[in-house]
């Protein structure tokens, strides 16, 4: 996936832990870990809204686009592994 989630950086700047953010946003720490590690397939607008409110930031602060090519197995062209 070439969309990067810069959650670590924003959490560091706000001096906030992942569990604290999870409590504020109402998402489990496990799901935030999935988001942070880039394994998420999709992000709801409502979730992005809640994150931006909790972190007092803009969506562009959290999300970035990586122009470099990737060998990510989760890319849409990869096989789904269920064959």
């Amino acid at each position: 996936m070439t969309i990067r989630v810069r959650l670590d950086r924003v959490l560091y700047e706000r001096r906030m832990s992942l569990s604290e953010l999870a409590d504020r946003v109402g998402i489990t720490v496990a799901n935030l870990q999935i988001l942070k590690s880039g394994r998420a397939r999709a992000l709801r607008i409502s979730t992005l809204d809640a994150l931006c409110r909790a972190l007092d930031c803009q969506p562009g602060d959290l999300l970035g686009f990586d122009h470099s090519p990737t060998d990510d197995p989760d890319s849409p062209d990869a096989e789904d592994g269920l064959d």
Partner: protein
Amino acid sequence: MRALGPESVSSFLKIAVDVVYAAACIAVAVVGPLCLVMLVYLPFGPAVPRLSLGGHLWVSPLPTLALVAVLLVVEAYVGCLVVILNRIRRIMETLVRGDPFHPDNVARLRWVGAAMVGLEAAAYGVRALLDQVGPHSAALRASDGWFNPTAWFAVLVVFVLAEVFREGARLRRDSELTI
């Protein structure tokens, strides 16, 4: 009535499948030892088995060897049914849990389809065997036709369902990874 979860249509279907599965297991448990008894009886008994019950004499329509072969085939057939029903039970368990597109259901459906192909192919072999047995088999022939399009259509439906569940499992995984 809900489609999924407890006290749903799926849960009642699961009860029905469980009952049929139990009956098939009982049938395997009964026919198996009967096969063993007949195999032991084979070298010592008459060519055509006879059984006297309450003054009535029952004479087998088949010779002992053919009867043993039929019992073995019945045991194998019901055994395959147990395997199929067990996989269907596992699928129904995921349905009752409200998680029908579990990835394991794809393989289970494919196994059910493969077992149905095996059963249908074995049925052709049984019919050929009965044809060879001779006039004694006339009473046991179920039908004169060889090709059963309904059965093969059912096999096709099962394999198509497996592909539908494969796509469902992919969508389920996507949903799990949607934050």
